[in-house]
């Protein structure tokens, strides 16, 4: 295996940085992200007060923005990773099933996929979260269960191809049970394309979490999330630019790194797309 190019290593380092930030947030954050101080409201970056030095400034309740950003990485990555896991599992399973069983399950599942993909995802998520109410688990389930159809399409098409190969017939004749064929013999062979979808979905889910939190439907205050920090900062955009600029920059950097990695992964796994 070739060593990845330096640019890819840099992207991986950025991504790892965000993961470390999320995992070690209590150790890295200089202050308690929930601690309010009315005397230190809306201070610009670099302000030094008796209460401490605020590298990225403070918000409208006098909370340290840097600490809130560091803790905000948790919301982003936890929601995105969990919802990708839910939709990857659900979508792959349904795709395997419809590609293997064919018949009615194929018709029902694939028509449902068409319908789901016709509803713009952000609207479906907004509607569902608004109906169910906010909360971490609900948010993950909503995102996970609205985003499975893309995986299903890929898993279905790949399963159709792989299931026709001689080694699957051989496994069948050797007496392999269907679920064992699906999970042990087909799934590993279609994992590459599913991984590519999962990477691009991961970037999208980070944007969705932030977007829903920005709209007030995601992670609820006072828990820090980049989206809700920006939503609060929007009211002070003329007086306190740092409240929207910094969280947005973190979000943009994270999503761009994930998307660039996803592109590279796709070209690696599917050389045709790179040479085109």
């Amino acid at each position, binding site marked *: 295996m070739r060593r990845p190019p330096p640019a890819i290593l840099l992207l991986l380092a950025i991504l790892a940085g965000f993961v470390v930030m999320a995992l070690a947030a209590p150790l890295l954050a200089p202050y308690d992200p929930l601690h309010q101080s009315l005397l230190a409201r809306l201070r610009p970056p670099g302000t030094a007060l008796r209460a401490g030095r605020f590298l990225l400034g403070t918000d409208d309740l006098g909370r340290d923005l840097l600490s809130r950003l560091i803790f905000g990485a948790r919301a982003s990555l936890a929601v995105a990773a969990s919802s990708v896991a839910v939709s990857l599992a659900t979508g792959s399973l349904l795709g395997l099933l419809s590609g293997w069983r064919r018949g009615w399950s194929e018709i029902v599942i694939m028509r449902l996929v068409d*319908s789901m993909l*016709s*509803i713009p995802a952000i609207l479906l998520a907004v509607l569902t979260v608004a109906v169910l109410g906010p909360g971490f688990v609900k948010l993950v389930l909503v995102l996970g269960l609205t985003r499975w159809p893309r995986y299903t399409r890929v898993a279905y098409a790949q399963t159709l191809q792989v299931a026709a190969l001689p080694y699957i017939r051989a496994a069948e004749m050797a007496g392999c049970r269907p679920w064992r064929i699906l999970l042990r013999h087909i799934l590993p062979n279609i994992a590459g394309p599913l991984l590519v979808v999962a990477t691009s979905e991961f970037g999208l889910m980070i944007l969705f979490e932030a*977007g829903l939190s920005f709209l007030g439907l995601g992670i609820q205050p006072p828990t820090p999330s980049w989206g809700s920090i920006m939503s609060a900062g*929007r009211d002070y*955009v003329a007086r306190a630019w740092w409240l929207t600029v910094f969280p947005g920059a973190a979000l943009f950097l994270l999503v761009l790194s994930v998307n660039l990695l996803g592109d590279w992964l796709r070209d690696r796994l599917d050389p045709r797309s790179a040479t085109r």
Partner: protein
Amino acid sequence: MPRHIAGRVGQALVAAFGVLSIVFVVLHLSGDPTLLLVPPDASAAQIAELRHALGFDRPLLAQYLAYLGQLAHFDLGQSLVQRAPVAVILAARIPYTVELALAALAVAIGLGLPAGIAMAVWRGRPAARLLAVVVLAGQSLPTFWSGILLILLFGVTLGWLPTSGADSASSVILPAVALGLVTMAGFARMMRIAMLDELGRDYVAAARARGLSRGAAILRHVLRNAAIPVVTIAALEIGNLLAGAVIVETVFAWPGIGQLAMQSIAARDFLVVQAVVLFVSLVYIGMNLLADLAYAWIDPRIRRGP
């Protein structure tokens, strides 16, 4: 061809039926949709009365059939909050979102097509790689961030453009740029692939052999052929633009259906939210169908079919 059309129309109808069913299921996820339609301070008696009046105490299947029957008559119901037909409320906002979506489409095409052409023509050179990163950066931009940055720069700092509302003709510029930057990526990618497909064909070599320069061959022949698939994805991107409007309209206080959806969620006016979701999804399905049919009409190989 008639078979192809009938098949596609049938597929679109099935998808539309699926959308209606999914929205019905989602609205019933909370257990009692009545609670989604009343102000938080409504009394238990009021809620019970309304539940009965709206038929939410009937069996689910009966409710489902009544819901489909209503929609079949284009009846979106009455908003209990605004005391007006939902269709009227929705119709008043649609022109704004259409204006925003078209302006954003112009931005996306204006930036995306040249980027795609350049990426294809400069293929393999560092400039093409840089452009690919720029295009992907556009796609990675959260619209609520780019929107606020645009407001900061052009509204607050420079004071050139209005930052919210739809009061003047130039109000649409900033939201359209924020929305268009995200959509640009789709056009750039599609144009690049279409150009690369065409550049490799024999007629290009023939044109070069006749003595045409590479630039002239691209301008005279390649662009025209490569444009065909790109025209059809423009129809698909309209659906994405309508959905993206939810966040952009909130940032810029643009009075379209996205803002309407968010206002209605805050006011617990879910029949209006439902109408917005149905409208956008059905437009998306319709555009998809149109794009497919247009593509088949343009390309005789699909038109005649096997």
